């Protein structure tokens, strides 16, 4: 009895408290509006009658908002526009608390304990207004002596200070850490001490953001294609031709929301596809795996199933030898910087150019570490068709190799090791399987062809004597292998027809030399710094605000740490990214899944369309062009113009690339014009602990440094506006603005234990203290080499995926490094293009391709760009255009660069900087030639990811002059039974462009428009 009486008393007190809070709300709102203009403006956006009540009406108060002021009265109103209704007083109090527990709030929302009923735009606005009150008056940034305000932001190339005066960006600079920031780590090696510099060493493209933000190519306002009428003739055949007219945001949102409704009504769920670019702006809230996914799930869409375009050979090949499926077939890197500096004698960079690819996002953070390695006398070797910038800076023997033949060299190296007994027998016996079968192939016992250095010379162009010398040197010296962009794998030669062969060989090579022993490991000083790996802050692929639990890392940590309402895409249909044009034009396509959950998943094919789902009829394009990250991209033009595509909307920051094919263009703003939060280099998801490529972990509040330019808006706001038309705005926003979400991300991380929100808002960044020396992670694979339990703190493989005992061995069926993968034996035993024994097969498009190789005798490789990040920071009339290793201006047009060997150029009468036509049967691109001996003979080296796609006709010939090299690359999968892409298996011919003079003449008549006078 006493207990019940006490409970009743508690409820009475709670009811009283709620009444007081509801009464206090209007003076609080009015007070905040008086003090803070931003909040005042938000409040004044609508007039409305709002009611907050318990569901049974026993407590209720209504609020009349008029002209930016609130008046409230107790009791129920007659006709409130928005009703916020709580099931009971406990829920109401929990939710109205200023520091509400988001777990309780979200639980209440998901289980109908709280409901917000009314017109969606008013409901969304009212919830955002209540949330905004708490943060009104917060101050952001640091005032500087010169009168500028210093903000912070984060890019794909690193963190920046952004200095703003009178609403305009004056400059951006790297962040120089101050005395209040946590001190760096020190590595002791061979009697010396190494400590990183106290500045974030950003990539060049990071320093171009002011220029791209103020680019003349920004989409200034919403636009509609001139001959597109959503209620009449749509003229899909004219996409890319007909030009645009300006429309209002109202009209634009009406058209887009109307089309979404119509698609659902006419075709049913799944007729909308949302193709994203490979990458977009940085930030956990605005990222495509966050806001966009939340948006997509709320409208339902056919997922464009990506291929692992930065991994390829590692996913489809290497994974089966050593596991690491949750890293897409590449390995971790823990402790390797220290081990390499202390123990290694040599680093072999194989198709690895970290000075250009930065390990992805790390800018030049690894450069200093590689300089340390050189200072310690560690020798570098570079195997690459290009004497690449890494080789240029650090020197070391260059082994030029024909593209796509790397596996032949690798196999010959292993031949020398076997023949001359130069490998680690004990390691092979104890830690690997299948060596005898592999050996039989290498030595020729199996097929009668010993894979000698002489054998490989005919394939690779590497003299047999050099291959032999390399093999001997490798066996003699403790060697780190830096393979691909990350050093521990990734891209590189893995992005060609023989990509899997090469990646598989890289694993086997290390298996023969004792992977994990001191000084013998994977990496090129690009990652594995001794930072604190346990400090929690989610990466961009860890779910953000998506509510999606499957297609990102949300379920692992973020969903619990930052409770938010689950969102689900009801559409199971997938369309393969590289076959998207065929899916549209032919109406069918087949793919194999990229899913790192388990190595077995990739064997299952899927087909588009899936029974029960419609074909795609609407494209919602977002995040920049992907013409230059696709293959054979001219296919997309026909796809965009296909009659089955009823509507194309492109939400774009810049008028570039494929935006020209949209019916409606929605102007988005850059991340300097909106709120976000993120950590430098931290991908999360498949890139777990990816932040250990940088020297200081830096978590950045991405300030809204300036107001959105023109009529542009944050992606988050655009999604919110579209969804408000569908009554889903409150569901999408959860009543939060982008800044509210940023705060939720902050609260859900380990940051609050170290820095207050208020301080973080002003300073804008936090440096995570380095790991104490005694706490540093052990060296990756050392446990494996020593036959111990795994002692690396990475939650993979899954508990069920250990061969026998949890914590012992690799994620392979045997738990060992498998020379002949059991997984391939079991699931793909008879695939001639991916044989169980990793036999060398020449590229299906390469020097051995009959007929084609005679017509197109050069091989083009297009690697990740050094001066832009995918399509970002390229073009846009930005500052990277003037870097002559990126683009070269001829007659006022900035041409893409094609690097070629001086002897190949001489044979063709091509001089340095000549305009040349690079072409094959798939298309023709005009580039500026860069002629030097730094490219292997027979090779043309370009970057991929031009942001421009500009077709013109000159002298009766259609050519692309934006640098879209992907128009030339084959769309055929790497090997049958995979969806791997092979852009680096691309035969071309190069010749002096005969249209050059006409182009230059036309341009001199009319400067500005690249199409001028040529159409």
């Amino acid at each position, binding site marked *: 009895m006493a207990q019940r009486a006490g409970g009743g008393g508690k409820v009475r007190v709670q009811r009283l408290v709620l009444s007081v809070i509801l009464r206090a709300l209007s003076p609080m709102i009015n007070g905040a509006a008086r003090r803070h203009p931003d909040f005042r403006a938000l409040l004044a956006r609508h007039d409305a009658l709002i009611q907050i009540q318990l569901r049974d009406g026993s407590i209720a108060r209504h609020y009349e908002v008029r002209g930016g002021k609130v008046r409230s009265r107790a009791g129920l109103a007659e006709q409130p526009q928005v009703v916020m209704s709580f099931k009971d007083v406990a829920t109401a109090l929990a939710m109205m608390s200023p520091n509400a527990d988001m777990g309780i709030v979200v639980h209440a929302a998901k289980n109908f304990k709280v409901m917000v009923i009314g017109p969606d735009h008013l409901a969304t606005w009212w919830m955002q207004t209540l949330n905004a009150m708490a943060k009104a008056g917060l101050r952001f940034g640091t005032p500087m002596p010169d009168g500028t305000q210093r903000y912070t932001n984060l890019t794909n190339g690193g963190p920046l200070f952004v200095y703003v005066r009178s609403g305009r960006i004056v400059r951006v600079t790297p962040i120089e850490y101050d005395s209040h920031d946590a001190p760096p780590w020190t590595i002791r090696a061979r009697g010396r001490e190494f400590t990183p510099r106290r500045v974030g060493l950003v990539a060049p493209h990071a320093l171009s953001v002011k220029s791209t933000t103020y680019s003349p190519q920004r989409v200034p306002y919403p636009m509609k294609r001139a001959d597109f009428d959503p209620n009449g003739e749509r003229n899909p055949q004219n996409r890319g031709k007909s030009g645009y007219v300006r429309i209002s945001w109202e009209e634009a949102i009406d058209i887009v929301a109307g089309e979404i409704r119509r698609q659902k009504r006419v075709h049913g769920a799944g007729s909308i596809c949302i193709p994203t670019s490979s990458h977009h702006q940085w930030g956990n809230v605005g990222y495509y795996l966050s806001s966009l996914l939340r948006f997509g799930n709320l409208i339902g869409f056919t997922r464009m199933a990506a291929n692992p375009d930065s991994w390829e050979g590692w996913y489809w090949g290497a994974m089966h030898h050593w596991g690491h499926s949750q890293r897409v077939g590449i390995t971790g890197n823990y402790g390797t910087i220290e081990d390499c500096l202390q123990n290694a004698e040599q680093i072999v960079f194989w198709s690895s150019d970290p000075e250009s690819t930065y390990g992805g996002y790390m800018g030049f953070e690894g450069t*200093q570490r590689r300089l340390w390695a050189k200072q310690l006398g560690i020798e570098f070797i570079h195997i690459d068709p290009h004497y690449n910038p890494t080789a240029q800076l650090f020197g070391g023997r260059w082994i030029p190799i024909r593209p796509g033949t790397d596996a032949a060299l690798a196999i010959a190296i292993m031949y020398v090791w076997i023949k001359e007994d130069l490998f680690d027998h004990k390691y092979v016996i104890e830690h690997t399987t299948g060596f005898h079968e592999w050996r039989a192939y290498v030595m020729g016992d199996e097929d009668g062809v010993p894979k000698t250095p002489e054998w490989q010379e005919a394939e690779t162009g590497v003299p047999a004597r050099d291959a032999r010398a390399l093999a001997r040197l490798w066996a003699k010296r403790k060697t780190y292998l830096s393979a691909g962009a990350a050093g521990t794998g990734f891209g590189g030669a893995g992005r060609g027809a023989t990509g899997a062969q090469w990646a598989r060989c890289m694993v086997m090579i290390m298996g023969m030399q004792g992977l994990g022993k001191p000084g013998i490991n994977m990496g090129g000083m690009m990652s594995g710094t001794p930072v604190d790996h346990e400090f929690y802050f989610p990466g961009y692929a860890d779910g953000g605000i998506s509510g999606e639990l499957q297609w990102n890392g949300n379920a692992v940590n973020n969903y619990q740490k930052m409770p938010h309402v689950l969102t689900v895409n009801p559409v199971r249909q997938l369309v393969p990214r590289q076959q998207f044009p065929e899916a549209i034009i032919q109406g069918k396509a087949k793919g194999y899944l990229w899913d790192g959950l388990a190595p077995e998943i990739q064997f299952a094919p899927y087909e588009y369309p899936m029974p029960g789902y419609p074909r795609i009829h609407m494209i919602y394009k977002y995040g920049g062009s992907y013409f230059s990250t696709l293959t054979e991209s001219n296919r997309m033009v026909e796809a965009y113009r296909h009659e089955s595509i009823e509507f194309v909307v492109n939400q774009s920051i810049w008028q570039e690339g494929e935006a020209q094919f949209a019916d409606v263009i929605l102007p988005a703003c850059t991340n300097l014009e909106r709120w976000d939060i993120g950590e430098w280099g931290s991908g999360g998801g498949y890139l777990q602990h990816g932040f250990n490529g940088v020297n200081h972990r830096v978590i950045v509040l991405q300030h809204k440094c300036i107001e959105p330019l023109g009529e542009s808006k944050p992606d988050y706001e655009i999604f919110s506006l579209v969804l408000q038309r569908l009554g889903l705005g409150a569901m999408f926003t959860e009543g939060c603005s982008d800044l509210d979400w940023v705060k939720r991300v902050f609260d859900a991380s380990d940051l609050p234990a170290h820095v207050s929100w208020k301080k973080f808002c002003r300073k804008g960044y936090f440096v995570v203290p380095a790991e104490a020396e005694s706490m540093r992670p052990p060296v990756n694979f050392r446990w494996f080499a020593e036959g111990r339990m795994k002692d690396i703190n990475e939650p993979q493989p899954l508990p069920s995926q250990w061969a026998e005992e949890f914590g012992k061995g690799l994620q392979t069926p045997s738990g060992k490094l498998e020379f002949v993968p059991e997984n391939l034996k079991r699931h793909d035993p008879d695939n001639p293009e991916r044989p169980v024994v990793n036999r060398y097969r020449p590229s299906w498009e390469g020097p051995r391709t009959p007929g084609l190789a005679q017509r197109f005798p050069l091989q083009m490789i297009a690697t990740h760009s050094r001066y832009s990040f995918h399509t970002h920071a390229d073009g846009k009339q930005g500052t990277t255009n003037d870097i002559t290793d990126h683009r070269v201006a001829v007659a006022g047009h900035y041409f893409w660069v094609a690097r070629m060997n001086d002897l190949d150029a001489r044979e063709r009468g091509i001089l340095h900087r000549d305009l040349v036509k690079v072409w094959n049967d798939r298309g023709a691109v005009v580039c500026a030639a860069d002629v030097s001996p730094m490219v292997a003979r027979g090779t043309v080296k370009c970057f991929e990811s031009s942001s421009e796609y500009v077709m013109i006709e000159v002298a009766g010939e259609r050519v692309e002059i934006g640098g879209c090299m992907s128009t030339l690359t084959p769309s055929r999968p790497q090997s049958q039974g995979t969806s791997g892409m092979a852009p680096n298996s691309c035969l071309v011919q190069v010749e002096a462009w005969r249209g050059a003079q006409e182009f230059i003449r036309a341009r001199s008549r009319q400067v500005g428009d690249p199409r001028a006078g040529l159409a």
Partner: protein
Amino acid sequence: MNRWNLIIDVALCENCNNCVLAARDELAGNAYPGYSAPHAAQGPAVIRIERRTRGATPMVDAAYLPRMCNHCDDAPCIRAAGDGSITKRADGIVLIDPQKGKGRRDLVAACPYGAIVWNEQEQLPQTWFFDAHLLDAGAPAPRCVPVCPTQAIEAVKIDDTSMQRRAADEDLRVLEPELGTRPRVWYRNLWRFDQCFIGGSVSTVDGVEDCLEGATVELLQGGKPLDRRATDAFGDFRFDRLAPRSGSYTIRISAGYRARTVEVQLLDESIYLGKLELA
């Protein structure tokens, strides 16, 4: 009196262009009264990087030379201006007055280093003026210094005697000293850009062909030995820092009882002799 100097290590420049981009970021679209009118957003830049490649596949290298206003102590542009539109400050920095310099397109040609850029919109000759506006506000260095990933660029403010001593001690050179302009931009390892090498790869055949490690290679000129190296694991040798057009050389390769000589004439370009088989 301490004055500004810039020291650039050619061997550490990797052509990342961070200095170029930082300068453009600082100067484009921004007016700094008394120092500079806004620079152009695109087109010729006040810091630019030149490339020099040497050798032949596979023995090649590339050197990069960042170039900008040399802040000469005897600046031809100041003389050409005549009217004080270009001045030298007491701290060594050469500045074009954004008012007085209006319309002076002729000054572009006055710089023998090609470091003056014409801004069509502003009708102004413009240069990299050492970020003097930042230094005057207390910045420790111009923007090109912290953004450089290899610390190839150093800004030092010291007296001229100390700088001369440092230049001598560290083998720093200026561009085209014969012009007598006395630049304040110094280069370390400039030989990577303007000197040549002679190299080759020594091999031997014993059943199969192999690189010959440890062979002795001597460089002689007029019978006089200049240098001597041992080949590395790839049989490679390289004699570097040879002056272009410095005449004919003899390369003598020996290993045990085997030996051969090669005569080469060094012109403007480095020479890679390719494979040299020692029979």
